Every structure is written in structure tokens, then in C-alpha cells.
């Protein structure tokens, strides 16, 4: 017997699989936008666990993404020749394993970043995570073994619609299921009032670190998907502006509102594509969006009801 939510997950996985079978009939531009949407949904929903539900303002999500992207790519690109035969040359086994490894490395980084959150709150935490993201970027830029500033090339083309949207579905399910339980309400309690949460017997430290580890894990997976889609990654692709882009999706969608965040991720991805002709000026649009939003709808564009829904 599966829970109803798990049937939804299976349905989403099946839909991704079917869509993947027909991917040959879509034009490549559409595929490109669709995969980017899927990756951004994964990134935004995983960040929503940290920033939205748990209320820990992280500005380093692109850093976790980078770690996952590089780890998975190194496995498939540099060691693919040795590792692939071990799984019988089956890329559909090899790829998720490489992705998973990338996610694990990213979640270890999440643990390391999560530990300072024991002491830091609000803006201080934002600065630390921002610093973390930059450190990752600068490190990657200066390590020749991973291509330095030139980046990693020749990454195999493993990403399909199935992997992209399968991962997005698993991420959404995981974050939803984590939060929708008596245990999971603790995340929201931490974001609402840490002192009261402690007084209710909630180990706030543990919740915050869990959020960081889980969030980083999925960001790492998304990074792997991204790398095996673009077949080329470079440190500057995982900079501060990428982190901001994900944060904007979360704020636009409404902190702690998964449906809103998914819509925002799709909306911003499509918007970015249509604004591509303006190049870097789209950062101005992002900044404007945040300003207008914070004034007009601080609860997010897609939050109508808040928490006034029946509990699972």
C-alpha cells in the first residue's frame, strides 16, 4: 500500500519517462528550455527547504550545485572508461550512480556549511553562505585538475527528460513529505520562532543541519543533470548570480510554498530565455522584480492561503 502522495510521485516519474521517449520529436530549443526548467525546479524547491520552510537564508545554493556538477562529471568524464564497464556499460545505471555521488559530496558540503548556522542568524548566515559559494567558485577556477577557469569539457551527454523531471519530481516529493508530518512541522517551527521551538523540545540545530544537508544534496544532483546536459561546465556558471537567480525563484513563488516556487522556477526560466537578447541586463530585471515584490507582495506571488490548509 502506497500513500497517495507516492502515487503522484510514481505518476510524475512515469510521465517523465513517457515524455523522454518522445524527446526525439521535440525541437532542440524546446528541449533546452524544458531541461533548464526541470533543473531550476529542483534547485528552487531544494532551496525552498532551507530558505522557505526552515527560514535559514542561504545565498550559496549555486556552490552546492557546482560541487555536485563537478563531482559527477569527473566520475563520468575522467573515470567513465574504467567505471562504465563495471556496470556492464549501461549508462542508465552509471549515470544515476554518478549523480548520486555528486549529491553526496554536495551534502557533505551542506553539513559543513550547516554547522556555522548553529551560531549565525539572518544576515550573518547569508554572508557566510555567500562566502562559501564564492570560495567554491574560486577554488574550481584555480584547480587545473578540473580544468581551472577553462572549465570541464567533453562531459558525456547522459541527461534526458526522464532524469531531469524524474529528479524534479523526487525533489518535490521529498521536500513535501519531509515538511508534511509532525516531525516536519519542526522545520516551520524553527523558521517561525527558534526560542519557542526549543521550548517545545525541538532540536533546532539538528533541523537546520538536516535542511542544509538535504537541500545541498538535491542541488548537487541538479548540478550533475546540468553538467551532463550542457556537456561543458565552467566555474563562472556557478557564481553569485546563479545563487541569486534561485533565491529569486523562491521569493517570487513564496517562501515555503512549493507549488508557487515551481511556477516561479518555470516562469523565470522562460522569461530568461525570452530576455536572452538583452544579455546581462536581465540581472536588472531580477533586481527590479525583488524590489517590486518585497513592496507589493512580501508573501510571494503565488501564496494565497498561507498555512490555512488541512494537514496531511
Amino acid at each position, binding site marked *: 500500500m502506497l500513500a497517495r502522495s507516492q502515487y503522484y510521485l510514481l505518476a510524475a516519474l512515469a510521465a517523465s519517462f513517457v515524455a523522454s521517449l518522445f524527446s526525439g520529436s521535440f525541437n532542440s530549443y524546446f528541449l533546452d528550455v524544458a531541461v533548464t526548467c526541470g533543473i531550476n525546479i529542483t534547485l528552487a524547491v531544494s532551496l525552498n527547504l532551507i530558505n522557505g520552510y526552515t527560514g535559514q537564508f542561504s545565498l550559496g545554493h549555486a556552490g552546492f550545485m557546482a560541487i555536485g556538477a563537478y563531482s559527477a562529471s569527473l566520475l563520468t568524464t575522467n573515470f567513465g572508461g574504467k567505471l562504465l564497464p563495471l556496470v556492464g556499460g549501461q549508462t542508465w545505471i552509471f549515470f544515476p550512480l554518478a549523480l548520486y555521488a555528486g549529491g553526496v559530496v554536495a551534502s557533505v558540503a551542506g553539513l559543513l556549511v550547516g554547522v556555522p548556522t548553529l551560531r549565525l542568524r539572518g544576515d550573518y548566515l547569508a554572508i557566510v553562505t555567500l562566502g562559501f559559494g564564492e570560495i567554491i567558485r574560486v577554488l574550481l577556477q584555480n584547480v587545473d585538475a578540473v580544468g581551472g577557469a577553462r572549465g570541464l569539457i567533453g562531459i558525456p551527454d547522459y541527461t534526458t527528460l526522464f532524469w531531469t523531471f524524474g529528479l524534479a519530481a523526487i525533489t518535490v516529493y521529498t521536500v513535501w513529505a519531509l515538511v508534511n508530518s509532525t516531525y516536519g512541522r519542526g522545520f*516551520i517551527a524553527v523558521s517561525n520562532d527558534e526560542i519557542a521551538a526549543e521550548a517545545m*523540545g525541538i532540536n533546532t540545530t539538528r533541523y537546520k543541519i538536516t535542511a542544509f544537508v538535504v537541500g545541498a544534496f538535491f542541488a548537487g544532483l541538479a548540478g550533475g543533470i546540468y553538467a551532463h546536459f550542457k556537456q561543458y561546465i565552467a566555474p563562472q556558471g556557478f557564481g553569485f548570480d546563479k545563487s541569486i537567480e534561485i533565491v529569486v525563484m523562491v521569493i517570487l513563488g513564496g517562501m515555503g510554498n512549493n507549488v508557487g516556487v515551481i511556477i516561479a522556477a518555470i516562469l523565470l526560466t522562460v522569461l530568461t530565455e525570452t530576455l536572452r537578447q538583452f544579455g546581462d541586463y536581465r540581472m536588472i530585471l531580477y533586481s527590479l522584480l525583488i524590489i517590486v515584490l518585497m513592496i507589493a507582495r512580501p508573501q510571494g506571488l503565488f501564496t494565497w492561503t498561507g498555512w490555512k490548509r*488541512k494537514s496531511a
Partner: protein
Amino acid sequence: MPPLLELDRVTIRFGGLTAVSELTAHVGGHELVGLIGPNGAGKTTVFNLITGVYQPTSGDIRFAGESLVGRKPYQITGRNIARTFQNIRLFPSLSVFDNVRVAFHLHVKHDAVHSLTRFRAFHAEEKEIAAQTMELLDIFDLGKFRDEPAKSLPYGSQRRLEIVRALATKPKLLLLDEPAAGMNPTEKTELTKLIRFIKDKFQIAVLLVEHDMQVVMGICERIAVLDYGVKIAEGTPTEVRANPKVIEAYLGEEPTPG
């Protein structure tokens, strides 16, 4: 058998200020004790010491014979001490139901992994907790608000919800920090009844910090009086009321309270 809660020469200093000095007090297993004193006497500091928000500079705090010193607030709640706050601290964006449900947190067996797998045992437990939550809410007449966000409740109901939430942690000792603050006389009378009811229904001890003399004198079996962090008197309401030191420190300095 030792009393439920013992404070043994507890002192805390913040820099040069001694907020609580050599305080020795106790609360019995099924007792309703009041802690009173003028503004800034250190009453809330005592609560923060008991609940692990502050660590005493010296002295020991024991609960059921075990020292609480050095433990974190959530661990102390896990040892069956629950509290409310002087300025209400609900989880504003969570529903009334979830505010109470999350306080059952200590008593659930499931964790992150079970939340993901959602096997039958998980659902059974969630159902059980939902039932217990509704039972508590209904006892305190909050059931009708179950899906409202806590922040939208009227003030008096928020106070009540905070007490319900504390009870959901299944305490043996309940610390109430000025529950009558901001209430009108009718609400105060109701609160008095409520506190007595809680004590009897849940068979717990209550330590009450309160400014309002009507409330304190009305329900407390024993009262300790703090002034500048020092205990200046202790006894039954009648004894305390007659104590010249108390009159001087408390009633003498402040105009008729209430």
C-alpha cells in the same frame, strides 16, 4: 523523596549585575506555586534558568533528582518541563492545529526517513497524534480554530493556545510566565479557573510568575517573593500578604496593582 523541582543556591550574574542571587526554592509534585516580585526582580530570569536558556553562574537546579544545569532548552523540555512566554511566542504562520501538533514532536517515533517512506505505521501514528491534538484543542475550546493561522486568533485565545501547546509536550511541571498579562478582569477570572483545571486534570505541578495579585493570591498554594534577585519571603498567600518585607518591597513601592 525529593521535591519535583529544586533550586539550590542558584545565582546568575550578567557582567556586574546579579540578577538572581542564592535562590533556594522548590516545587512539589502536584503543587501550584507562585513566584512574584516587582518589575525587574528576576522572575523571568528564574524561568530562563530552569528551562536552560541561561546557565547559572553557581548553584544547582534539579528536576526529579537530576541536575538540569548544562542542558539545552529542548533537552529540558524532553525532561517534562514546559513553559509559556511573557510575550506570547506561538508559531504565527502555522495553523492552530499544527502549533499543538508540533509540540507532540518529542513523543513521535517517526523521523525524516519515515516521513519519506510513509508506511502504515507512520500514518497510524500521525492519526493518533491528530486525535490527541484535537482532544486537547477541544478541551480548551480551540477546536473551532483548528485551521486558522495562530496569528489570527484573538489575544485571549492565543494565550490559551500557548498553554495548550505547552501541555502537548506532556509536562510534569508547567511554567507560566505572566499568563494574565493584558487580560481584562473577566478573562482573568477565567484564567484562574483554567489554571486550576489544568493542574487537576493533567495532574501536574505549576510554577506561576505573575504580576496580578488577584490571580496569584487566588490560586497559589504557596508563594515565593523575589526582590532584586533575592528571595525575601515565602509562604501561603495569607502569610505573604502579611509579611512586612513584602509590603515594603512590593505593595509599598507600587500603587495598588491589578
